[in-house]
């Protein structure tokens, strides 16, 4: 009986309860909105001080989160039936509801009468009298804060462009990282030159780079990370190369006939390798090899092939061994041709073969360009500040890796610059693989500490010049670069004034230490004159043609020296007047500009 009566009281309170619950949640939503708008205001204020990428997205997410938390708190602190009864009483029930609630279960005459009275009054009550609108003060706060946020968002914000750039960079990084991972995965799957372990190493490198890139928000940092990855890749690839050459060298060294070739291979000296194979060829040609010696040669080559993991070098060694074996049994076989191919392959490996496994190097360079472009920067500018500390010329030229260089195939005629644009020139091996007369050789100054810049041109054109760098206090310096084309970077001048050109006067980002970067044509002359190596396809040996696109970027930021010299000279003279520079230095600077005029 009591339970039934209590149930009736509950039923009578239900409409009021619903309304009060609605009001309760509206109140918490309003509270959430106030807190969300406060956090939006804080974000907005902060955005005037620091660039905040995806600020409105963050504001929205945080705001939504805060509102949801507020509602959750509201759900946790739902009004009890007792408080609902008290609320109902405030609508003129004169404490009937709360008294009835407190006397639930009692069956004395007064309790019964009182409960009936309460139920009757509750039923007559129009629950819509309970306003669900949050308190006026709260609504005013919401309106005020919303207005503040709207007005704040309309104010010109100097940081918004930076933030937008960061946003673009982050998006680009994400896109590039995804692309890199996918393409590397695809390329590695198709790659048969590398062992599984090597593929794992490369994947690890790429994944580490991806992780680091995702953590950075700054394009300069991102480019730095990519450059770091490039260096790591180079080291890794050198390791692969050394491993292979070491295996081959050690095996060949054990055989008397191929001992010289083995030593040359171990030393990874391309010229020595060529010479050693030429010697072998010569001996075979002269016919002063008996069948036993020939068999010994075959065994040596086969042993070397057996020591190697699968790949083109192994295959070539086997082919050469096969040709020697054919000759032993009197069959016709082109030993010379196979040995030539082997020679080229070993020389290629010695000079930097496998430099771009799975096109990773290419993709990394592309990535740097894309990130810099997303930041609205030229890659060279982006790199300059970083490279300055390494003494590296950012405008090295020619291809930075052999793979890309192969595209030229001798199409460059003398006097015409190679059309490719080198990027970082960190490796100094541009054009290194210019086999078969590919004339795209280009030199560069590798201005690393102690910087021995070498710039082997096309291999078939013995006109390579080897630029020697002279390092000074860890700053790459001196006349790196020789033959090739557009060799505009010559490292630094004895570690003092770097020889970077200043692109379109973009100012301080190019500054290095206390000095501004200037275009220093005299540096170019020090290490060898700019020139072009004429290459002709020999038609011999394996070659690979790669259809080159428009290049990895553009040099649109590059301005010829004579166009900027005047303004630089003027500016230097003005600065001489304005700045506190020792007298002897003034003279030196004046002389310098006079000399390069």
């Amino acid at each position, binding site marked *: 009986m009591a339970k039934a009566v209590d149930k009736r009281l509950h039923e009578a309170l239900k409409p009021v309860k619903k309304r009060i619950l609605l009001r309760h949640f509206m109140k918490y939503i309003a509270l959430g909105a106030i807190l969300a708008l406060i956090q939006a205001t804080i974000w907005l204020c902060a955005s005037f001080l620091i660039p905040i990428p995806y600020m409105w997205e963050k504001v929205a997410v945080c705001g939504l989160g805060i509102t949801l938390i507020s509602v959750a708190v509201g759900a946790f602190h739902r009004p009890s039936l007792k408080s609902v009864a008290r609320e109902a009483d405030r609508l003129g029930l004169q404490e*009937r509801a*709360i*008294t009835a609630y407190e006397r639930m279960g009692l069956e004395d*005459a007064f309790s019964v*009468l*009182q409960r009936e009275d309460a139920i009757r009054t509750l039923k007559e009550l129009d629950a819509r009298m309970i306003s669900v609108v949050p308190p006026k003060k709260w609504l005013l706060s919401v309106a005020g804060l919303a207005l503040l946020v709207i007005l704040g968002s309309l104010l010109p914000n100097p940081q918004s462009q930076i933030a937008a750039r960061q946003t673009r960079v982050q998006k680009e990084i994400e896109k590039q990282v995804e692309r890199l991972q996918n393409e590397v995965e695809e390329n590695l799957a198709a790659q048969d030159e590398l062992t599984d372990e090597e593929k794992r190493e490369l994947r690890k490198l790429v994944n580490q780079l991806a992780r680091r890139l995702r953590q950075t928000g700054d394009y300069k940092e991102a480019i730095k990370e990519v450059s770091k990855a490039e260096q790591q890749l180079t080291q890794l690839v050198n390791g692969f190369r050394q491993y292979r050459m070491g295996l081959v060298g050690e095996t060949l060294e054990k055989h008397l006939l191929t001992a010289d070739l083995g030593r040359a291979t171990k030393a990874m000296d391309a010229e020595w390798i060529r010479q050693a194979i030429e010697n072998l060829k010569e001996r075979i040609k002269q016919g002063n090899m008996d069948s036993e010696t020939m068999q010994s040669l075959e065994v040596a080559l086969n042993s070397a092939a057996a020591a190697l993991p699968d790949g083109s070098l192994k295959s070539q060694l086997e082919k050469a061994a096969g040709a020697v074996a054919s000759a032993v049994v009197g069959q016709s076989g082109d030993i010379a041709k196979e040995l030539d191919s082997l020679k080229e392959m070993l020389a290629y490996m010695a000079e930097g073969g496998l430099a771009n496994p799975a096109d990773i190097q290419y993709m990394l360079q592309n990535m740097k360009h894309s990130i810099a472009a997303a930041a609205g920067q030229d890659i060279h500018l982006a790199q300059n500040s970083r490279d300055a500390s390494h003494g590296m010329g950012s405008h090295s030229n020619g291809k930075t890796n052999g793979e890309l260089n192969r595209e030229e195939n001798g199409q460059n005629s003398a006097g015409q610059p190679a059309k490719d644009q080198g990027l970082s020139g960190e490796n100094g091996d541009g054009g290194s693989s210019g086999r078969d007369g590919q004339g795209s050789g280009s030199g560069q100054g590798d201005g690393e500490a102690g910087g021995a810049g070498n710039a082997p041109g096309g291999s078939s054109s013995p006109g390579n010049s080897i630029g020697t760098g002279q390092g000074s206090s860890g700053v790459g310096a001196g006349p790196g670069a020789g033959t090739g084309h557009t060799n505009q970077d010559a490292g630094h001048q004895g570690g003092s004034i770097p020889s970077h050109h200043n692109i379109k006067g973009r100012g301080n980002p190019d500054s290095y230490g206390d000095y501004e970067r200037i275009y220093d044509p005299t540096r170019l002359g020090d290490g060898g004159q700019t020139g072009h190596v004429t290459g002709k396809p020999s038609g011999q040996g394996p070659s690979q043609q790669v259809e080159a696109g428009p290049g990895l970027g553009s040099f649109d930021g590059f301005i010829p020296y004579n166009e900027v010299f005047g303004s630089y000279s003027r500016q230097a003279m003005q600065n001489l007047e304005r700045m506190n520079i020792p007298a002897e230095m003034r003279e030196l600077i004046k002389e310098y500009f006079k000399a390069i005029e």
Partner: protein
Amino acid sequence: MDMSINDIEAFAQKVREIEGEIAKEMVGQRDVIRQVIMAMLAGGNVLLEGVPGLGKTRLVRTISRVLDLSFSRIQFTPDLMPADVVGTNIVVRDESGSRFEFQPGPVFSNIVLADEINRATPKTQSALLEAMQEHTVTVGGVTRQLPQPFFVLATQNPIEQEGTYPLPEAQLDRFMFKILVEFPSLEELHEIIDMTTAGREVKAQKVADGQTIMRLRSVAAAVPIARSVQDYALRLVLATHPERDDAPQVTKRYIRYGASPRGAQSIISTAKVRAVMEGRYNVSFEDIRYVAYPALRHRIALSFEGMAEGKAPDEIIGQILSELEE
């Protein structure tokens, strides 16, 4: 005592009858009548304060007639002795000889009108203390029970201070209500004049008796009160104490000492009566607010600042109520 739904429902009806009947003889003073009935049904005594000629005595007489209760009127004067109030032992001679026999005083009535109570000496005033609180009288070592229901209705004149003895706090505290009898309005005066000078006086009829009153009292005592409402009443009483840290500023400034627990009892018990009189079966905050004035105004003592600024207790109570959260 068992109480049926009929008893409860009859309560409001009976009270309305009593009220209506008294109103036949009393022009205006609706609130005074209601408050007197409330105090009476809550089992308390009433101190009526008002200038002479406002019908205080008439009210008491009417009540006694309507309720069919015995009635005594004691005119308090400075030479009135306690024995004149409570009675005394006198020597009685009869066939069996002489002996002392207790001669009951006028206090031995259901309704005692202590007219101009502040004119008597404190000694005489205090003769009423036991009667008012314990409903007993002790004379010559013998305690005698007063007839039930017992109800003291005292009056005092707020104007004349000469030759008066203000009631001590202990005695004031024993009055459940102190009711202020206001001067009637013009319309009410017309009606009073018409009624009393044109011979159109109407006699109130008896509508209840002592037993009914006792039953109504027991019904009133059982009216439910929610914890929050009771809490409100008690917080109200506590708010009249200036020594409390959480006391309102008005209390700290204008009150010397606050209401006693009897004040809280008075508020709750009279609020219960009012609830049923209003046709409700529970006490509301409004009931508490209504009875707070007559129940507390004589229980708070104004500080020097309060008196100097001419603050009325009602004003202070009003301010406390406005600051007190439900």
